């Protein structure tokens, strides 16, 4: 089986890179990362802010630097990275050799084989629809961040941000850094969605947050010229007469994310709907293995969380693969996984994490149930 990879990792974000590093560190010589983008790193490369967490997850360091660090470590360990390569099919494979259909810019459509697969495809942005939302100038906050921080294009000069979760708050700060004027952040809930520290740092720059408000419409002939917001009552009904009009050329949507589960679906993994994790997510065990043997998940595809969590889950998946391939003995693997779970439990504690911790343990329970039947 000359042309069979030991492990194929789909997605080169923090989870995928951490997984690749782990398997390679334990002696795997044939690990490959497949990524559709021009460069590895997933969303890390547009994250110009310093990250939270602890030193085990490179906290205090700017996101793109974490991306470079992980990428270099993976490369130094001999991990092959195939860029501009989309995974288009996971075929009815047996446990030992799995067939992956890929399309790459240079070689077109072909198949590769791997003994184990780690799916780390991340998540994508949600959108909301409102009158005028199809006008140019309405885009995801993540899209605006990509334009600014990767392509160095400021997508608008006067911006309204919809959503006050951490993404909305952080991108607002970065828009200010890039020289845009952010006229306000609109939040439907009566409280800020993200962390207080992120809210505090844009409030003190003079950006107001409109709680219990929603967007009414975007107005413009060929592109966004104005945004109208209004207040909503406790039943989420808009209150007439509370409209506020802003002259803007950009409306950013930061209204949550949804896991990219197309490939876990295609692989035949069983899923569960958990709102706290962004929607449908694959069931998995403590080693991140799904209900399909030999197929693992890590990071946002297994539930939308933080970079720190994605790195730790990637490590779990990597260790499990190394164990399954006989590169690490079970006792060592178990101990290592326990250490990581301890860190994950800590990362998922506190007022912003407990609901995700509960959800994750529900996934583990459901996995056990399904595997018994």
């Amino acid at each position: 089986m000359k042309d069979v990879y030991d492990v194929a990792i789909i997605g080169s974000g923090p989870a995928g890179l951490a997984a690749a590093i782990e398997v390679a560190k334990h002696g795997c010589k044939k690990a490959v990362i497949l990524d559709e983008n021009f460069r590895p790193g997933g969303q890390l490369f547009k994250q110009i802010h310093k990250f939270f967490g602890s030193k085990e997850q490179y906290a205090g360091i700017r996101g793109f630097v974490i991306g470079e660090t992980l990428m270099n470590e993976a490369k130094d360990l001999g991990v092959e990275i195939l860029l501009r390569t989309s995974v288009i099919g996971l075929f009815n494979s047996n446990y030992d050799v799995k067939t992956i259909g890929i399309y790459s810019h240079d070689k077109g459509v072909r198949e590769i084989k791997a003994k184990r697969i780690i799916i780390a495809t991340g998540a994508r942005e949600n959108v909301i629809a409102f009158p005028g939302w199809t006008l140019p100038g309405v885009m995801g906050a993540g899209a605006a961040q990509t334009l600014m921080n990767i392509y160095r294009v400021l997508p608008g000069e006067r911006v309204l941000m919809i959503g006050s979760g951490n993404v909305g708050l952080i991108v607002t700060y970065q828009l200010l850094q890039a020289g845009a004027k952010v006229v306000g952040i609109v939040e439907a809930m009566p409280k800020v969605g993200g962390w207080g520290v992120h809210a505090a740092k844009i409030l003190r720059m003079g950006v107001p947050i409109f709680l219990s408000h929603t967007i009414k419409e975007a107005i413009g002939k060929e592109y966004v010229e104005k945004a109208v917001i209004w207040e909503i009552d406790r039943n989420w009904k808009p209150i007439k007469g509370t409209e506020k009009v802003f002259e803007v050329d950009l409306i950013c949507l930061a209204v949550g994310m949804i896991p990219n589960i197309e490939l876990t679906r295609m692989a035949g993994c069983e899923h569960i709907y958990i709102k706290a994790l962004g929607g449908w997510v694959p069931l998995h065990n403590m080693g991140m293995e799904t209900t399909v043997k030999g197929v693992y998940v890590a990071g946002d595809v297994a539930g939308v969380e933080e970079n720190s969590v994605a790195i730790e889950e990637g490590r779990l998946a990597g260790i499990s693969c190394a164990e399954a391939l006989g590169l690490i003995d079970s006792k060592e693997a178990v101990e290592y996984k326990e250490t990581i779970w301890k860190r994950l439990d800590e990362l998922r504690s506190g007022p912003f994490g407990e609901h995700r911790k509960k959800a994750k343990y529900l996934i583990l329970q459901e996995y056990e149930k399904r595997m018994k039947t």
Partner: protein
Amino acid sequence: MSETNKRVLGVNIIGIPTEEEYWNCPGVPSEKRMLKGPVAVIECFQEIPCNVCEDACPFGAIKVGHPITNLPVLDEDKCKGCKLCIPICPGLAIFVVDLSREGEARISLPYEFLPVPSVGEEVDALDRWGRVVAKAKVVQVLYSEKFDKTYIITISVPKKYAFFVRSIKVRR
């Protein structure tokens, strides 16, 4: 400016603390300590998973411990006001306040915008809502590669603004 903003206060509502939340925060030292000289003011009010400040302090004055979501606890006697924790905090939530001078408050804050002000320059001092409340004079600008693009700007404002001013606007 938003009317909504003026109505609400509270860390879990808008991110800005009430007076009670502020003085009950284990990262905020006593006013008595600030009067003695520069001291870190860790305005970290929510249990979020982060302990970067704990490792950054060369004097062991900041404790997070386990779980990582514990609020940072400042030992105000151990803190020397060295400012090294300011640029490392991903939440930009650490300031150093020095009330030891007559009538004057010196506030050191993290700054990640261009242009970077110079020593001696007059800048606008903004409160937590971004309102210009006073003129401030820049008395120190600290930067090292280790700060990774976060400058530490120390400003001088009238003492009564010590707990209000948390941001600056360069006029250039």
